[in-house]
């Protein structure tokens, strides 16, 4: 396996979505290639930052309307 092949397999590798021989080839490549090890680590960090995205939010007005609609349903 070369680096050009490895970089296309990172998501499958992280998802555990590859057959054993391919996974083994990835692990072997990683053991001897610090460039791809860095690439993999950067992918992980990218995913981690994505998980930290602050929520956008509904405008207060829309939010209040929805709360009102919820309340109204239980009033009658």
């Amino acid at each position, binding site marked *: 396996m*070369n*680096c*050009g*092949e490895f*970089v*296309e397999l*990172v*998501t*499958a590798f992280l*998802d555990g*979505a590859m057959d054993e021989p391919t996974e083994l080839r990835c692990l072997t490549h990683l053991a001897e*290639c*610090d*460039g*791809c090890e*860095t*690439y993999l*680590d*950067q*992918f992980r*960090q*990218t*995913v981690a*930052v*994505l*998980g*930290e*995205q*602050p*929520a*956008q*939010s*509904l*405008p207060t007005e*829309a*939010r209040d*309307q*929805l*709360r009102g*609609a*919820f*309340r109204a*349903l*239980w009033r009658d």
Partner: protein
Amino acid sequence: MAGARELPPDEVLVQRLRDGDEETFALVLDTWSGSMLRLAMSFVSTRDSAQEAVQDTWLAVIKGIGDFEGRSSLKTWVYRILVNTAKARGTKESRTVPFTSLLPEEEGPTVDADRFRAPGEPYAGHWAVGQKPQPWHIPEDHVLRGEVREVIAEAIDELPPRLRTVITLRDVAGYGSEEVCDLLEISPGNQRVLLHRARALLRRKLEKYLSGAHDVAGGRGRA
């Protein structure tokens, strides 16, 4: 917004909603609406329209919570209503995003071929000299980390819609691959291609940002 409150388990949540507990409703509303907005943006053409799709979804949830059968998680149920609502809007705005097959621009290498040694050279396909990814340091400092998140947020907005949809569900909203395939009616292989492509694009944005910004004290000036 940091440190969103943990939601109680589904049974509790659903029961409280059925009992008309407004605090619980406000809690799910605030916890999910953000990623719902971003997801809706993948299907429609404007922010207003995305907002309306999210509002319509919540109204449908309020009316339909009595019929929720618990065959999927509450969150999946809510998001499926959103996807259907947003898709219907998108169709009206003639901005459909079918997922049945990959587009030509969604295939092919995700890393620039120039970064690897050319075919025929010794070590062909391995990182070329000076092109190997350099280790990063994503700052722990709140302000700087906030900047990194902003870079990512902008980059998500710039992604082609299908890539944005998949990465929003997987990495921002935290869905597993099976759920995403279900929700979008997409094959596992295609899901992975789209996700991988989206992540590779975002990694490149971060690489560019962090290599340009890291040595510059107090700002993001150019090196």
